[in-house]
């Protein structure tokens, strides 16, 4: 609550503590700007997905007693493919590998870092492939994007989640490139990996939330 304390300051008071503040209340000592921007971005993404979640729940409640209700369009439960469990497992594993990479790169162990970076990228790709395979299964079973509201949401939300992951992968791969080409300072790579780790863990949590929503509705 440093923020609250900061805005209690009386800037016009020439005698008080405000007058002596030269280095002042720089709020930045502990976090890098990249870290702060990432935190903010995660907050924005959370709002985005929370709004989708609210829309999902509101769309479930079709008022079948309404005089306008015409017998169609009410909520039909979607049977999600079991493959999603495997995908979830892969994503958990990915998070683990990325955590491992983070530690190794911080300890400056170059070989282990490179292995971690590569395996992390491959596992992420495997997850994405698994998600698209789940789409294929749904498609084969006749659950198209416009079949029911549940299937529409499923394609939309898994797609958006995958897009977020692809965005992260882009950063991850650039760090991988630098590590292999020895382009950047090792601690720059390790900083990127550290931020990626936060992002991947976040996307794992997000996926678990989405999956729980899908399974229960």
């Amino acid at each position, binding site marked *: 609550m440093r*923020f609250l304390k*900061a*805005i*209690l*300051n*009386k*800037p*016009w008071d*020439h005698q008080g503590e*405000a*007058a002596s*503040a*030269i*280095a*002042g*209340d*720089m*709020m*930045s*000592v502990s*976090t*890098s*700007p990249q870290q*702060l*921007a990432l935190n*903010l*971005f995660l*907050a*924005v993404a959370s*709002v*985005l997905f929370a*709004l*989708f979640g609210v*829309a999902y729940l*509101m*769309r479930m409640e*079709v008022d079948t007693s309404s005089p*306008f209700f*015409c017998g*169609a*369009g*009410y*909520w039909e439960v979607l049977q999600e493919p079991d493959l999603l469990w495997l995908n979830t497992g892969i994503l958990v594993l990915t998070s683990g590998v990325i955590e491992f990479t983070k530690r190794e790169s911080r300890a400056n162990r170059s070989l282990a870092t490179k292995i971690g970076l590569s395996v992390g990228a491959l596992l992420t790709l495997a997850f994405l492939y698994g998600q698209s395979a789940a789409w294929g299964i749904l498609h084969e079973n006749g659950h198209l*994007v*416009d079949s029911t*509201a549940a299937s*529409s949401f499923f394609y*939309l939300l898994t797609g958006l989640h995958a897009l977020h992951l692809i965005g992260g992968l882009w950063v991850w791969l650039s760090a991988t490139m630098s590590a292999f080409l020895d382009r950047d300072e090792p601690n720059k790579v390790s900083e990127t990996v550290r931020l990626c780790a936060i992002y991947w863990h976040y996307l794992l949590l997000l996926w678990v939330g989405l999956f729980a929503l899908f399974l229960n509705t």
Partner: protein
Amino acid sequence: MAYVPIADRPDEMHDPQSFITKYIWSQDHKVIAIQYGGTAIAIGVVALVLSVLMRLQLGFPDTFAFIDPTDYYQYVTMHGMIMVVYLLTALFLGGFGNYLIPLQIGARDMVFPFLNMLSYWFYLLSVIILAASFFVAGGPTGAGWTLYPPQAITEGTPGAEGGILLMLLSLAVFVVAFTMGGLNYVTTVLQARTHGMTLMRMPLSVWGIFVATILGLFAFPALFVSAVMMAFDHLLGTSFFMPAMISLGESVEHAGGSPILFQHLFWFFGHPEVYIVALPAFGLVSDVLSTHARRNIFGYRMMVWAIVAIGGLSFIVWAHHMYVSGMNPYFGFFFAFTTLIIAVPTAIKVYNWVLTLWKGNIRMTVPMLFAMGFIFTFIHGGLTGLFLGNVTVDLPLSDTYFVVAHFHMVMGVSPVLVLFAAIYHWFPKISGRMFDEKLGKIHFWGTFLGTYAIYLPMHYIGALGVPRRYFALGTTDFIPESAFELNAAITVAALIVAAIQVVFFINVFKSLWKGEKADPNPWEATSLEWHTPHTPPHHGNWGPNLPVVYRWAYEYATPGVKDDFVPQSVPPGDVVMKKKGDVFKESEH
């Protein structure tokens, strides 16, 4: 030591050299600000022309054969959306946010200059996509700026094929652009302040822009969600928002979607959007008022708190736009309650502006005129907002010209007056030239009196029950003949106001071309941007050393001090005090 991203740099700075890197692919916040501002004003002129066309039709129905109902709806929609999103939001945050944040907090640039540049180019892309919709088959969407489904994507609505899709795409791109810019503004304010620039020493401009940016970061996702889901309904045949219905004699392929869900999402964005525009305006106008009244801003802390409180509250009032949607009355009660609560911090701000003027040494400069004009129009629009915030009063007034008059006063005219105040105020710093005072005053009086001539009568027309978004009124019993005459008069006023804006552009171009060279600090202001080593500031803003801040930005007419202002960066030891026996003399200007 605190982290300062681009700290003191006594060595030679690597300035971009070529024309392209300096003015086009520039990562300098000042250039990006001007790019943002220029683009926003250019598309804003389109919106202005559209409003003139609408007024022609409304004032003189059956006269202009080239405007048919389809055109009219397209004008209404594009006018509203451009004004709110592509002009005001972009100009306040992308324009003034970019220009002022680093300069007023003493940074060399934004923390992520590359992202900043990207933000502008995405914004430009969104504007181009939007403008492209004028040229696709069927034209731009005519769904109203609220884009309510089902009609927005149902055959029969203008632009229901291509136009609406381009609108949705453009909005989605805009949200991406805004998010890139917004992450930058917030991070820069929190982390790149110079030595001594505590949060509570920041000028209110930065506070307004800062909190508005946070609102934007959390409100724009709702617009993104609604745009994506509507695009799905339209392109892929899903039924998120589309109910089963009969359209043109055939039942549509959708079933079960909820149009009300869209309204909730849209207004969860739409109401904070009002404050995304208003908070920067509040901030900028506070600084202009204080500087030209030679008085410290009254109740600085309260002003900051009010900005923060309004920002928070603005997320829990959205459904006051939906009183007529058939919502639960308890729901309506809740939203009326929160709406009236938000009036409290807003009123505090108004009192503080007026009290800042009290006993001030007011200099009637052009920016000051616009800033004082804002106080009038904002009070005016705010008061009618209290009417509309009450469910029972809103029900009969909803969708009449009373609403049009209200929101134009409060979020059309008022922010635009602040924009002009800000443009005139910072023009000498941005361009290094003075503008023409006389032309500026003509511009002010024409705009200020003209907008009153437009919108005051509109309240009356609305109270008569004249509905908004109508191409023509036809013959009805409840609309007297006099209302038609009034409509013609409003149109004449609107034409005059539109024409007066030409004076502004003449002034800008004339001054850029051969204006008098500006003093680095023509208004004798205290904040950092007026004390750069160069005017306009060079790349990196501060030369080798960052400024050090010793006080807040409102040290005007301090008792015992010789000059009537003390800049933020002057060390306490260098402040010249009045000698005993000095006769107190108001500084003349």
